[in-house]
Every structure is written in C-alpha cells, then in structure tokens.
C-alpha cells in the first residue's frame, strides 16, 4: 500500500465517530459546561487533528497493519534476544472479556476476586519456576524490573545501614544494556566484566572487581551470545561473601525452564519478561510485564501492594512492605493485569512437562540452526568452540564483510525483501558484524530450514552481485530511507507538524 500520512486524509467536516452528549435535562440545568472554564484555561483554537470518516480511518490502519511483520504472519527467528514465540489466540480472547477490560484498579477487593486469584496463582507458579519466594507483577517491562531490582538493592543496604559503602554494581558485557543503565540511573557506579577467551565472564576480573563496595551483581545467564556461564555459583557466592546481592536478568529464561533455576544458581532476585518466555504478545513494544521475584529476606522491600490469600479471599497486602525502606511503588496500580492473565493461561496449558519441552525445543532449534549456519563459510560465532549454546547465538559475518564489503546491516536490509527479520546486536558491536538469532520453540524444522536457505541465498548473492545490496530492500513496504534525517536537528522531524515546518523552510 502507498498509504498517506493520516493528516493528509483530513477533510473538513468529516467525523470518525459520534460522541455521547449530555442529555437535554442536564444542559437545562448546567448550561454548556465549558463557559464555566476560567477564561485563561479555555482552548482558543481547536487542536489541528485530522477530520476523517470512519471507513477511511479504518482502511488506513488496516493497511498499516498489513505492512507490519508481526509474529502471527512471520517466521520469527531473526529477532535475537527478543524471544518472539507463538502467542495463542485463546489467551487473547480471554483477555478481551469485559471481566478483564472493564475493571478499575481501585475497585474494592471483593469485586475483583477473579483477577486477584489469577495474579496470586501466577505468583505461585513463578515461585516454583524460579525458586524465589515472592513475585510482584508491578514492573511494566524488563527494564523497569531491573530498575526495581536495583531499588530493592538500595533498600536492602539502606536497611542494613551500609548504603553509602555499597555503591558499585557489577554486570557483564553481554548482559542487556539495561542491566547497566537502570542501576546507573539508581545512582550506582557500574563495573563491566568482559568475557574471557571462551566468552564466559572473566572470573579473574570478577574477583578483582568484587569488594565491600559491591552492592550487587546484575547478570543475564546465558548472555546474548547464548553462552551459559558454568561457574555461576562461584560468582554468586563471591558476591554474597562480600555482602552484595545477586540479581538475575531472566528476561529471557526460555532455554532454562524446568532445567535450572535462579535459586540453585545462588540468586537473591530475578525477573521474567512475561512477553518473552511466557508468550504474551509483544504488541509492537508493550504493554508488558517484568515479573520480579525475590527471596523471603527481601520481600519486605518490594513495591506495594503484594497479592495474598487469607484462605478465603484474595487481597492486596500492604503490611509486608510497610517499612520506611521499601521501594514504595514503581508503576501505577498493580501492573498490566491482562499480561499476567495471558501468562497464567499459557503456563496452565503447558504444565511442568510442557515448560520442560519448551526449553528443550528452544535449545534444540537453536543448536540445529547453529550447526547449520556454522557450516557456511562466511559465518562464525566466537567463543566456546564445539560446545552447545542455550537459546540464541550471536554470530559474526566478518568474513563476508572482508570478502565482499557487505556489512551486517546490508544483509539485514536484504533479508526484508524475503519478508524476514534479522537483528544485528546492541551497540556497540563487541562481536564484529554481528547477527543475533533466536529461534525459540515456535518454528518448525521446515521454518528453520527456510530461514537458513534464505541466508545462504543472500550470502551467495553478496559474493556474486554485491551491488544488489546498495538499494535494498526492494520489495518491502518502503525503500531505503535517507538516514541523514535521523541525527540532524535541522532535518529530523518527530511529528508531522515538525516535518511540515522543516520541509517548507
């Protein structure tokens, strides 16, 4: 579709929907309502919103939706670290029941027993999956969960009176950028542990970094490379010996379900992105939930309220966290309830054996893909040669770039001509010319083979007709964008009104 910007569809006088009006009796009693507004608070000019009939608004967004490559229509392998798996439709239908959508978060507990029960039971499920003792669903995503973990770290050390001393947080290079960014925001000094030659976080460097200043250790395991740190217990022990806490980034725990848990590895806290491991849809980037769990000892520092059951009814428990150190609140109300509900439904359609199958197949799919791609001459993956990866791999196509000049971003754009995703890596690129792929348990063998074949075709093309990459993509929804508009304040246009101003100058 060659669909205009929505403002271009405006025609004066058109309406998209009619709005309920006050009844005549009300108008008789109170008048027009708005003339009561203080003069200086009245809007002088109507906002310059477009005026569009309903069928045209619908057609516009229907077309935009068709130009969006959601997991419902695509084989999701190329969005490494994102764990884009199947989100069952039955869960969506449940989440659209008015008993979910039309409830207000401040309703009396007696009127929301259903959702409280679901949230409480999901907490119980999460406890068993992680080994932690209590979960909150308040954080609205993984990064907010990390921030919350950092807040709990602060509260814990405050309560112990050593807040000032404990001012460093250690993370690793291949953990998610937010594992550094969110604690930094909370005022911590960040220390990165670099990988050793095998891709494991360097234990010697770690020993050197841990000290009495160490407030906590924030880490993903496996990291974005798909490498699992086999000495993780030694890491967590060392931190504990120095009075620090261990915080596990399990945003993506997909490869470990039923295989190993946060508790056994020595962590005090962890979080799961329900929109990754637990299949709730990503929604173009949220709403989401970072379900955060802690050990009993840390429970009292969590954001309030916790959800509890007194044997008869479910209720919001404000007592446990009723102390001056507790985090208080990180998101309004009680998190994104429909996401929790969907995760609950998904787990209950899996059971312990299903979760185990998920982990095994996610790892099987990944190692199959790994094996097949490593057979290609121009693909490599640094670290732990000959060993298994967990649920994803960060590859490098440095050889391709050296041989042909085609870079990973070029391959990415060309992949789109085949209707496929392909992700490079977070910045900066520690692995040169990176390509990060994570199949999850959702693709079939045929899907994997198709993805591999497409990559193979493109690599071959890079050697044979590298000029083809210059203007790719060709058959995607639009052609190559002029990137100069993105970093130049004189050209960037973050809104249509801004674009109009800048393009008429």
């Amino acid at each position, binding site marked *: 579709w060659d669909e205009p910007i929505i403002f271009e569809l405006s025609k004066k006088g058109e309406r*998209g929907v009619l*709005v309920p009006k*006050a*009844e005549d009796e009300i108008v008789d009693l*109170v008048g027009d309502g*708005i003339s009561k507004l203080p003069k200086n608070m009245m*809007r002088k000019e109507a*906002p*310059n*919103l477009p005026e569009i009939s309903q069928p045209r*608004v619908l057609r*516009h967004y*229907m*077309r935009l939706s068709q130009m*969006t*490559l959601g997991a*419902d229509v695509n084989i999701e392998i190329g*969005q490494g670290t*994102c764990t884009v798996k199947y989100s069952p439709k039955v869960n969506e239908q*449940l989440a659209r029941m008015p008993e979910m*959508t*039309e409830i207000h978060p401040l309703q*009396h507990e007696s009127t929301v027993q259903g959702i409280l029960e679901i949230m409480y039971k999901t907490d119980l499920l999460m406890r068993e999956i992680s080994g932690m003792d209590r979960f909150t669903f308040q954080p609205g995503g*993984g990064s*907010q969960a990390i921030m919350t973990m950092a807040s709990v770290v602060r509260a814990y050390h405050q309560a112990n009176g050593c807040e000032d001393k404990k001012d460093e947080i250690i993370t690793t290079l291949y953990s998610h950028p*937010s594992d550094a*960014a969110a604690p930094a925001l909370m005022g911590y000094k960040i220390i990165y542990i670099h990988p050793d030659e095998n891709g494991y976080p360097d234990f010697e460097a770690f020993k050197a970094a841990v000290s009495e200043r160490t407030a906590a250790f924030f880490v993903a395991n496996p990291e974005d490379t798909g490498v*699992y740190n*086999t000495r*993780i217990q030694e890491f967590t022990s060392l931190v504990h010996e120095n009075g620090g806490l261990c915080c596990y980034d399990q945003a993506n725990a997909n*490869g470990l379900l*039923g295989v190993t848990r946060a508790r056994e590895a020595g962590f005090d806290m962890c979080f799961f992105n329900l929109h990754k491991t637990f299949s709730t849809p990503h929604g*173009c*980037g*949220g709403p*989401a939930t970072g379900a955060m769990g802690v050990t009993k000892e840390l429970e009292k520092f969590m954001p309030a309220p916790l959800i509890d059951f007194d044997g008869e009814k479910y209720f919001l428990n404000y007592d446990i966290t009723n102390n001056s150190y507790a985090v208080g609140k990180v998101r*309004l*109300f009680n998190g994104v*309830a429909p996401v929790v509900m969907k995760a609950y439904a998904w787990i*209950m*359609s899996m*059971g312990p054996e299903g*979760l185990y199958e998920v*982990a095994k*197949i996610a790892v*099987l*799919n990944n*190692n199959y893909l790994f094996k097949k791609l490593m057979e290609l001459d121009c693909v490599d993956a640094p670290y732990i040669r000959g060993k298994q990866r*967990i649920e994803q791999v960060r590859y490098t196509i440095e050889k391709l770039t050296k041989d042909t000049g085609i870079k990973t971003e070029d391959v990415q754009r060309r992949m789109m001509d085949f209707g496929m995703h392909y*992700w490079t890596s977070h910045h900066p690129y520690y692995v040169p010319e990176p390509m990060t792929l994570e199949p999850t*348990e*959702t693709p*079939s063998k045929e899907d994997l083979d198709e993805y591999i074949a497409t990559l193979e075709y493109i690599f071959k093309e890079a050697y044979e007709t590298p000029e083809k990459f210059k203007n790719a*993509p060709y058959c995607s*929804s639009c052609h190559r964008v002029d990137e*100069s508009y*993105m970093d130049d304040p004189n050209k960037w246009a*973050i809104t249509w009104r*801004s674009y109009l*101003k800048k393009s008429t100058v």
Partner: protein
Amino acid sequence: MQGFKSHPYIPNSVVDVQQEMLKEIGINSLEELHAEIPEEIKLKGNMNLPKPFSSEYELRRHVEGLLKKNKTCKENINFLGAGCWQHYVPAICDEINSRGEFLTAYGGEPYNDFGRFQALFEYQSLVAELVDMDVVNVPTMDGAQAAATAIRMAGRITKRNEVLVPKAMDKEKFLIMKNYCAKDLTLIKVDYDIKTGQLDIEDLNKKISEKTAAVFFENPSFLGFIEEHGQEISDIAHNAGALSVVGVDPSSLGVMIPPSQYGADIISGDLQPLGIHMNYGGGQSGFMATRDEERFVMEFPSRLFGIAPTIVEGEYGFGDVAYDRTSFGHHRHEGKEYVGTQTALWGITAGVYLATMGPVGMFELGQAIMQKSQYAIKKINAINGVKGSLFDAVSFKEFVVNFDETGKTVREINKFLIEKNIFGGKDLSKDFPELGESALYCVTEVHTKEDIDRLVAALEECVK
C-alpha cells in the same frame, strides 16, 4: 523427566522430528542438550506445578470461570477515576489493536515493520497537535513514569537537583517519582489552598530557589480542579531558571488550553483515556512532549520515531531519531535513563482514537464531561450533609465529594453503594487526612443522567 509431546504450540515437540534434528547436531537425546549447565544446579525432576489443562476448551472454561468472579464497570456504575478513567472506547480502537500484525510485532526495522513505525509516528504527531508541541515520544510505562522522566529531563537540562511538586497529587504517583529520581533529585511538596485547591503561590515562591530544576504541577489536578494560575506558575519557574513541567489529562484538551500555551517546557500525561480500556490498570501509558529543541530532544530516554524521504521520490520512510541518546545506543548506561519494552500498542491505539475523534469529537468529549460532572456535583450537593465539590474551583471530570456532616465514613458509604451496584469514588481519607471524609468522584461521557441520578438516590438513601 518427560516433555509434553505433540503440543499444539510447539511444532518440533514431535518425537520423530526431534530425532532427526538431534542426529544433525550429533547427539542422541534431548537430555544431552544443556550440556553446559552444571549438574549440581540442574533440576532432578519435573517442577512441582499443576497439571496443565488437557484441552483449550478446559483452559478457557477455567479462566472464564475465574474472570467471571470480577464485577465489571459495565454491570455496575463506576465513579472511580484517580489516574485510570472509564471512557468510551470506539470499536475501531479495539479492532486495530487486536490485529495480529500489530499485536505480535516487536523489534523489526522500519522496512519490514513499516506500519508499526508509521502508526507510532502518527500517534506522536496526533498527540503533538493535542498538546501543541513539536516532539512527542514513543510511549513510556504510564503517566507517573512520564512525569518522573520529565523531571529527570529537567534536572539534566538545568543541572539542578530539586523539583517542586504539588501536595495535591496522587500519593502513588509521588512514590513512583520519588523512587525513580532518588539520589539525583529531591522532591519538595508545595502546599495547596485548602479552599480552592489551587497551588499555594506563596509557598511556591518560598520554596523555589536556584536549586530548583523544575516546578511540576498538574492541570487538571489529581483532585480534579482546574489550576488557574498556569502561566503565573510557569513564570515563577522560569524566573528562577527552572523549567515548567505540567502533567495533563489529554481528554481535557479539546476544551482546555494546552500547557504549552501557558509556559510549560515539558508536558507529561497518561494516554489511557484515549481509547484504552481500564484493564485493571493495565491500560496506562505515558507520554512526554517538548518543543523541537536539541537540548530537549537529546534528553529523552525514549525512542523517537522520525519521518524521512527514501530513495524513491515522494515516498516516506521512518527511523529512530538520535538513537545514540538511548541506552540501546553506543553509550549504554551513559545513555539517557534506559529504554526497553514499554507500551507501544497503547500509543498506536491512542493514535487511532485521536484520528477517529478529530477536533470536533475532542471538543464534544470535553464538553460532555464538564456538563455531566457539573450536573453530578449539583445533584450531590443537594443531598443533606454532603458537599458536591469540596473545592471552590471549577473541575474537569473529577471532584472531591465530602461527607463530614453525614457522620458516615467514605468506607461505609462505598460499602453501601457496592450493594447497589455502584462503585463510589476513591476514598481520600488516608492520603489526604486534611480533607476529612472525602472521596474523589469521576464522571465522564459514559455516565448517563440516569446513572448519576441512581448514584444520587443511593447516596441519599445511605446518608439519610
């Protein structure tokens, strides 16, 4: 340990396929996977979880059964607001946000996720018109997060570390901002006029200083009244070298002047009123808006989608503006705050809503809300011992009802109302003890005259 074979969600849970793939990898069984996990931390048996439902039907029946225990704001008449508001959601909003493509997209590029980029760019552009600002972000968690980020942005811009906030604000929101800004910013509360609810200008003047990064206030305020001194407050902030940061309810902006027109440098708010169901609080979604100045733009932690030409004449493309600002960029933890999954689908939804409502719809919405809430205040005020609106100020959508003279507590009254299938307003007696037995009532365009009359009758019965 046994896996779940031939599970509908997992194509390769078929044993034969597994064998074929294992052979390709060169191992014999699924158990040989996870060779890297040390034995001592591996689970030795299946997790102790309930057995799964053995069919989609049983799962659905079970979850439906649980959800049916909830009492909805459709079967009951709801007057709760306080940050999450019941508005009418046009059918088209749900139609679009339930489209599988939008629902299940995530982190694609501007080429293959073209529609997602355009829809979010359009959302930014539509909200920009509503607030009369040139820059709006891809949405953040909720209005509280937006306010927290807005004042952090002010802190970074002014390089100061105190922020003045209104005492008449939501306690939860305050806690969120406090936690988020701890270490870097000190939040200082500015009192309000107990008669009018308005920000106490005297107290503001007293507390503002060269340490003040921003004056944050809300309009309409948490307690529903309209803050009339917007320009004056902004001027005081500016004169002290601080920024004016204003929290706004977007549903008011069809009839109310946007804060940018009374001095706001940064606007924050929650998108939930714009076509998003309450979802037990799951519908919250925050936005910030600023002028198109580099010093503002470069302080956003969020993604900002920009429009640009492509190599084809007349074609638009999209991309991330100033990506390296963010923690996804090269600076990682030295980027601005952090970014991650937030609430993009609600941003798209708010865009659909605004495009559908148009300027006339937004005006009529604001007007209907004002008329209906004024009607409710008037009617409630006529009840013996009840003050329809505690503050002597015009309100928008929400208002404080006081029951002191009835001798009943809000708690008692609300309990009575539930039995009449009415959800009374939020009890303020704990967070605002100075207001006595007061409750925050919310009336929007969804309330018919009959709904309000039923409330009034029930209140009358309760306090008589």
